[in-house]
Structure formats: structure tokens, C-alpha cells
């Protein structure tokens, strides 16, 4: 069981690196492709070709690492699949039919396009790729949201979970706030990638005209979504968790004892054995305010719940704090960059360009950390309140088999990760000015 969880955690975390890139970069690909096709602007065409290439490498890595995710439900989580397939299978089928086809067919058209294709067609192909990437994200997050907060189902006589209302499954507030938050996380990552690559060109004093365009567009997008990730999406997502998964909230915040006027721990290390935070820094009453909009509200701590219903506290706590901490840094950095941009000082502020360039990997860490908090915080449940993770495995698959496949995935993904970095860095090194506009 532990090995199955490790394998799923490893394959999903590795996979999710790429959807962050595709969901985040897709609007840039669409926008530059649109500009290039509609305004016949050669510089935009170079930028579009450049980002389409990087997007394509990202997309390929996302596709090949995505297939194992759907298969693993069946291979390693047979009891879970059997029990919940009538619900969980639906958004997955929708993803295939409504998102994957759209994304792959139109990306194929963009990548292998020929001269003489009508510009309207090319412009819309970019938009379709973006729509496909986002829709795919929506269906997957809806699936996950159902596992976090099951709705729209009923339980049959034999204990299997049956679908009752698909609209409630897809469009529960839990689902759309979680999706909005995940998408803003991806878009802020996309913004920082574009800005970071542009900053790299400016710092190396090459491709400067294009570099400025990238920094400008990237910084504005990063700024907008760094704020949206906090409010409203992060806030509303948090309130859904407060309402339906209070024990996860307590673990994320490191709140061991139930309190009125509960403080918010900015830092500190949870000591689960002694049920306290080590070396904490608190903001008084603030957790009560964030959770319930009232400084005096009562917030349940971990002590309000049976010990066997606690998620692994340390991992949930650290992952959540890493996400929030990085999110705060992103908001601050993007705000400063946008102010410099507005006053025309950004191009001479090389220190800010350095920051933008060095920030590039961190949105990936923040996105991953957010998901770790979400998923580890869901434990011990695989479907919250309905089915325990321990009951979800495959009765016929032994640990030995899973260790073998886990080693195989590790090898495969090491190779893929290496190739991805090599190819992406190579494309960035070659740069947009080398592109032949199609």
C-alpha cells in the first residue's frame, strides 16, 4: 500500500510539472499566434514560434506522463476504481472527449502547419489549444474535488458508489474554486516563465526588443494571477476546506488545540508527539479571521478529531506553508516589478531582472506544494468521509510488483526529465530571433 502511494505520488507530482507549463503557457502561445496571424507582425511570429516549440516539448512530456495516471487508477487502485468508477470515470471520459482531442488535434495543426494556411485558421488553432489545456485541467480538478468533497452520488446496496447528478459533481463550489485556484497557480507560473526568459535575454544583452516584450507581458500576467491566487481563489478554496475538511485546515495551520481567537502561525515546526509548534511566530487572532471572517471565531484544532483521522501533520503543514510563503513572495516581487514597469524603470533595474530570472523555478514548487497539502491533507481518506485510502488498493497486485514498476518509472522519468531540461534550455539558448516565422 505504501509503495502504491509512493508510486502515485511520484508519478503525479512529476506529471503535474508539465500541466503547470501547458496551462500557464497556452494563453501566451494563443495570444502571440493570434497577433502574428492577424497583424502579420514578424516579431510576434518569431515569439509565437518560439513559445509554440517550448509548449510542444512541455506538452509531449505532459502527454506521456499523463497516460500512466489514468491507467494507474485501474492497475494500482482497483478497489477504488471499482467502487467509484461510475462517478470518477465520468469527468475522465469528458476530459478525453472534450479536451484531449481538441488540444492534440489543433496542436498538431499548429506544429505541422504549412505555408498558405488561412491566417484565421492558425489564429483560432492557438485558441483551441489553450481551451483544450484549460478544459483538461478543469475535468481533472473536478475529479479531485469530488474525492475531496463527494457530492451528487448515492450508495448502492452492495456498497458501490453510484452517480446521481453529474452537474453537482462538476460544478460544486469546492470544484470550481479549487480549479480557479489551480489555474491561477498555473497562470502565475506561466507569467513568471515568460518574464524570466525575457529577463535572461535582457541580462545577457541579446534579443533585447523581444526580451522587453516578454518581460512586460509576463510580469503583468504574473502580477494579476499572483493576486488572484490569494484573493479570491485561495481565500474561497480555503473556506471550502474550512467548511468540509476542518481537520485538514488544522493540520495545514499547525493548530493543535481548539481556540477562539486562533492565531496564524507564519513559521514554526510541528512537534506532533508533544502537540505543539516549535519556535513559532504567530499573528494573533488572524486564523479565526481568515477562516470565518471574524477575529473571535472558534477554530477547531487537531485535538477536536480522533487521532486516526489526522492526516500526516508535518507534511501537510510544511507543504501548505511553502505554498503560502512562496505565494506571498510572488505577489510582492510581481507588484514591485509592475510598479517599476509602470514608471519605465524596469529596464534599468537589473536587480529586478535578476530576481525575475531566478524566480522561474519557484512557481513550480509552489504549485506542487499546494497539491501536496491538498492530497496529503486528505488522508486517511481516498474519498473524503466515504472510503479510506487503505481500502482502495488492488488485491491482486503485490508490493514486489509495484516496487519493480516504481523503479521503472523512476528510471524513465529521470531520462525524460533530463531530456526535457536539455531541450528546453537549448531552445531558450537559441532564442526567438533564430525562429523562421511560418
Amino acid at each position, binding site marked *: 500500500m505504501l509503495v502504491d502511494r509512493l508510486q502515485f505520488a511520484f508519478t503525479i507530482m512529476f506529471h503535474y510539472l508539465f500541466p503547470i507549463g501547458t496551462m500557464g503557457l497556452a494563453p501566451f502561445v494563443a495570444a502571440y499566434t493570434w497577433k502574428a496571424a492577424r497583424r502579420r507582425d514578424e516579431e510576434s511570429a518569431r515569439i509565437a514560434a518560439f513559445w509554440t*516549440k517550448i509548449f510542444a*516539448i512541455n*506538452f*509531449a*512530456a505532459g*502527454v*506521456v*506522463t499523463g*497516460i*500512466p495516471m*489514468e*491507467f494507474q*487508477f*485501474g*492497475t*494500482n487502485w*482497483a478497489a477504488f*476504481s*471499482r467502487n467509484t*468508477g*461510475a462517478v*470518477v*470515470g*465520468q469527468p*475522465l*471520459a*469528458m476530459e*478525453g*472527449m*472534450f479536451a*484531449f*482531442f*481538441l488540444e*492534440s*488535434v*489543433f496542436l*498538431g*495543426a499548429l506544429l*505541422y*502547419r*504549412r505555408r498558405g*494556411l488561412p491566417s484565421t485558421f492558425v489564429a483560432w488553432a492557438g485558441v483551441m489549444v489553450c481551451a483544450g489545456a484549460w478544459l483538461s485541467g478543469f475535468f481533472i480538478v473536478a475529479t479531485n474535488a469530488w474525492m475531496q468533497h463527494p457530492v451528487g452520488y448515492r450508495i*448502492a446496496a452492495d456498497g*458501490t458508489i*453510484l*452517480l446521481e*447528478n*453529474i452537474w453537482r459533481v462538476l460544478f460544486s463550489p469546492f470544484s470550481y474554486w479549487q480549479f480557479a485556484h489551480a489555474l491561477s497557480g498555473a497562470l502565475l507560473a506561466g507569467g513568471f516563465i515568460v518574464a524570466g526568459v525575457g529577463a535572461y535575454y535582457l541580462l545577457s544583452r541579446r534579443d533585447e526588443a523581444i526580451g522587453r516584450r516578454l518581460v512586460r507581458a509576463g510580469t503583468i500576467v504574473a502580477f494579476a494571477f499572483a493576486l488572484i491566487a490569494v484573493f479570491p481563489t485561495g481565500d474561497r478554496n480555503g473556506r471550502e476546506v474550512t467548511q468540509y475538511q476542518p481537520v485538514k485546515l488544522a493540520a495545514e495551520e499547525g493548530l493543535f488545540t481548539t481556540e477562539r481567537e486562533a492565531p496564524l502561525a507564519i513559521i514554526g515546526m510541528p512537534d506532533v508527539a508533544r502537540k505543539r509548534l516549535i519556535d513559532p511566530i504567530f499573528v494573533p487572532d488572524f486564523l479565526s479571521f481568515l477562516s470565518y471572517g471574524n477575529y473571535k471565531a472558534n477554530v477547531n484544532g487537531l485535538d477536536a478529531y480522533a487521532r486516526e483521522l489526522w492526516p500526516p501533520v508535518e507534511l501537510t503543514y510544511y507543504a501548505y506553508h511553502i505554498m503560502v510563503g512562496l505565494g506571498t513572495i510572488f505577489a510582492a516581487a510581481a507588484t514591485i516589478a509592475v510598479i517599476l514597469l509602470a514608471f519605465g524603470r524596469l529596464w534599468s533595474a537589473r536587480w529586478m531582472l535578476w530576481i525575475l530570472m531566478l524566480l522561474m523555478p519557484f512557481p513550480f514548487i509552489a504549485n506542487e506544494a499546494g497539491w501536496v497539502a491538498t492530497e496529503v491533507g486528505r488522508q486517511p481518506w481516498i474519498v473524503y468521509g466515504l472510503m479510506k485510502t487503505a481500502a482502495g488498493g*488492488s*488485491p*491482486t*497486485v503485490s508490493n514486489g*510488483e509495484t516496487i519493480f*514498476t516504481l523503479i521503472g518509472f523512476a528510471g*524513465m522519468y529521470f531520462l*525524460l526529465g533530463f*531530456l526535457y531540461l536539455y*531541450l528546453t534550455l*537549448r*531552445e531558450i539558448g537559441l532564442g526567438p530571433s533564430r525562429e523562421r516565422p511560418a
Partner: protein
Amino acid sequence: MSLAAFLTIAFMFAMYVMLDGYDLGVATVGALIARGERDRSAAMASIGPFWNGNEVWLIAAAAALFALFPAAYAAAFSGFYLPFIIVLWLLMLRGIALELREHFPSEVWHQFWDAAFAASSALLIFVFGIALGNLLRGVPLDAAGYFAGTFAFLLNPYAVLVGVFALATLAQHGAAFAAMRLDGDLGLRAARMLRPLWWVVLALYLAVTAATFAVHGGLARWLLAMPLLSLAALAGVWWAARSQRAKGAFAMSLAFVATLVTAAAGTLFPYLLPAFPAGRGGISIFSTAPSPVALTCALTVTLGGIVIVGIYTPIVWRRMGGKLRAE
């Protein structure tokens, strides 16, 4: 209603075999007909814009199976744990080879990816064929409906025969596609390759059909007509190839593959995972019938999706179509 679910899933798998079948076939046959770097690059480019969309049929079909017959999905995927993971790795390797090859700056890398591409594609066809063979023959199932056999059991002579037949059929399918899509010498060589392949396919088809009747008593009567349709389509491939109608040959090859999948689905019906030895039951569409709500939802999604995809895909593909030249 369960019948409608079965037909929908069978249709999606058929689309997968017909469409991704030519990608895999081009990869396999490309290794035989390509002379040098440029040819292999052109063979890959001929399927480049299409393969990913084609592969989605597999993902979507698996998801539809998951939604409609979760018990069968769970039993099959966990039962055949190792073979499924191997399929995954091969699918991944093929995708990486296809998508990343052109980004590498050196010929050494290109040769490596070409070999990986051909080998993973050919192996995929073979493994899919073995899986289909076992599906038709039935597998040992325990009381709870989980696979109770061994890896070695899956490598029985019948399944291996189906695997070899699948390899030949999709190689022919790929050759027909390449002959239609590729210009110049390479296209001609693909067309020439069709002839010897055709004889191999014919011989294997007769062997597999005879073997299927042998391992599988009690086939539905309408299935007895399927060999006639298959042979007619196969004759069509021969006729079109002889009169050098590349599009006709590919269309006939599509029809041939379609009749094969139909026959396989008909042989399987009403089981999703029949037990071995035959007559011991298995997981059928009635033993794990989906609830009406789930069924309506999944059927609306898949049928609606099929209609939408059926509208835009041909429009896009028409813009990508036509002959390709090796650059």
C-alpha cells in the same frame, strides 16, 4: 442499454485500432522501407500531426470503460498489472521518440530515436495483439472477478499467433498510409511493400480465423459472415494496390481493420472479460451493468464527443493532408 454501452466502447476501441494502427504501422514498416535519415524523418512527419489525436481514442475508450464498467476496468487493469505497465512504458517511449526527435540537433540522437520509435511501436502492436488474443480466449478469473493466472499463461500459442497477425495487419495498414501520404521514392517503396505484406496478412488471417473457431465454440451465427466481409476488404486492398489507387488501398485497409475489430467485439460479446476455460462465465456487461444515470451521462459524453470530434477533426486534417515530400 448495456448493449449501447458495449457498442460505444467497442466503437471507440475500433477507432483507436484503425487510426493509431496506421501510426504504429508506419513506424514498423518505416524501419523496413526508409533509406537513411531523411526518409525516416519524412516517415515520422507523415504521422506527426495525427498520432496524438489518434492515441486519445485509447485514453477516451479506457475512460469510458472506467465510467461504464468499473468492475471490468478494475479487474482487467490490476489483473494484467505487468503487461499494462509495459504497454504504458512502450506508449511513453513511442511518444517521446516521435515528439522530441526533431528537437535534437545531432544525427546520432536521431538514429537513436528512430530505432526506439520503430522498436517500441512494433512491440506495442505485438503486445496489444497478445492482449486481444487472451481476451478472446478467456483468462482464469477468481471468484471476485480478478485475474488469477500468471504472466506465462498469457503467452499461449493462440495469443502469440494473434500478436503476429496484428503486427502484419498493422504493418500493411501503415504501408498503405505511407503510400498515400508520402511522395517520391519513399512512397513508391511503401506501395511496393504492400504486396508481400498482403500475402503474409492473408495467410495469417486464415490461420487466426481457423484458430479462433477452434478455441471458441459457440460463436453467434452472424459472426460466421464476418470472414466474408474481411476477405472482401482484403481483396479490395489487393485490387486498389494493383491499380495504384493509394487512397483506395488505405480505405480498404481501414475497412479490413474495422471488420477485424467488429469480429473480435462480436466474439467477446456479451463478455468484457471472459473466463478461461470457455463456458466458465466471466465479467459480462450484464453482471456489472452500469446504473441508468451513469450510463446516460457517459453515453451522452462519448456520443456527443464523437460527434464534435467528428466535425472538427476532418476539417483540420483536410488542411494537413496531401502528399509529403522528404526534404
